[in-house]
């Protein structure tokens, strides 16, 4: 069936089977490669995208579910001051090693900043609980997000 939605500000229409997940539509049909195929079962956060501004896992959303909605991926927010700050602080803090989880973390952290969540260490941990990083041990990621929030204030 035809599914139309806004992807990073542009209207797109794709023809999908009902059993297709958003992750596959984004990666295989629309060339969005920041969205990573990780666990594929809503555990790791590597496939995080923004649905109407809120972070969600694209691996457990059927593409038909997002008909008429607005999806944003890292590609669509990379030029915002928030993401620029996040990227530079991730680099400075050494919060990126293999990098596979990084887009998911940045998208979730961006949503947190945009929603005005008070940037305490507790709140940052809570917001990022659905993203897994197997390299850094999280401390550097939390430091990077904290510094990024301070720098865009």
């Amino acid at each position: 069936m035809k599914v139309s939605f806004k992807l990073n500000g542009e209207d797109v229409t794709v023809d999908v089977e009902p059993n297709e997940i958003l992750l596959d539509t984004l990666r295989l049909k629309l060339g969005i490669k920041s969205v990573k195929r990780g666990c594929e079962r809503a555990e790791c956060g590597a496939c995080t995208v923004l649905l109407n501004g809120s972070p969600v896992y694209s691996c457990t959303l059927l593409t038909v579910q997002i008909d008429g909605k607005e999806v944003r991926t890292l590609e669509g927010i990379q030029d915002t001051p928030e993401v620029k700050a996040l990227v530079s602080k991730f680099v400075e803090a050494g919060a990126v090693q293999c990098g596979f989880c990084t887009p998911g973390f940045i998208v979730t952290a961006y949503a947190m900043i945009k929603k005005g969540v008070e940037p305490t260490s507790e709140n940052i941990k809570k917001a990022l609980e659905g993203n897994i990083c197997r390299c850094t041990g999280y401390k550097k990621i939390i430091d990077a997000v904290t510094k990024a929030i301070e720098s865009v204030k």
Partner: protein
Amino acid sequence: MFYRIPKFNYYRASTLDEALDLVSSLNDFKVLAGGTDLVIDLKVRRYTVKNVVDISRIKELDYIADDGDRVRIGALTKLQSIADSPIIREKVPVLADAVREMASWQIRNIATIGGNLCNASPAADTAPPLYVLNATLRLVSKEGEREVPIAEFFLGPRKTALRSKELLKEIVIPHEPGCGASFLKLGRRNSFTLSVVAVATLVKVVENKFADVRIALNSVAPTPVRARKAEEYLKGKEVSLDNITEAAKLVLHDISPISDVRASAEYRKDMSVVLTRDSLIKSLERIGIKV
């Protein structure tokens, strides 16, 4: 690609009436509310179904209403909306506490309270608070509506009192001022985790005696359960740490945990006692009583 979802026919309802038409005319279907459980269950073939009825767009079932003497939550209200709701935080904070600890932000933004209940996992974390709050579920079909107390809704793992042509419409929570309630959950780690055991308790105290006590646990029986023996033991007794400690041991009469990937039955039993005691203490603290 590790998983492929088998093909199914997809039906989308925009209104409750449309959804009821669909579920009364289709056979072999599953209802998709948020899909955070269903899509995974389809991937891992826990279910293979011919038809999926997507009710996620029914706006009329997404609300939190404060009627003064009760709070009503539409079945399609997202978990994150419940965690963030000033009404829930003020009137039924125990539910906000439980929902806040469920899954992750990404899942709470999609998952619904109705989905959590109708999926009927023994580890459903919305259940223990709703049990101690004496919540009622309003079920609707083309024939009409009926109300089922939450404790009668769960029949077994993934089994509910919901008939095949029925949908859960809303959750009704009576507001009982003066009660203290709390929720404690133990998982294998601190965040984004399924319950090894979770406990909700509610207490009402009059003249330093327990006037009412309600205790509910999940993940320690085929369905979430009330710990009636422990409740009865405390009713009428003086509020003291000794009485609470004794009562907590009695939860073992009402639970029948199994060993699984998350924990052994033995550990679940021990932790049920500990969490019940701690939750009772916390519930008392919420109404200003220290033991």
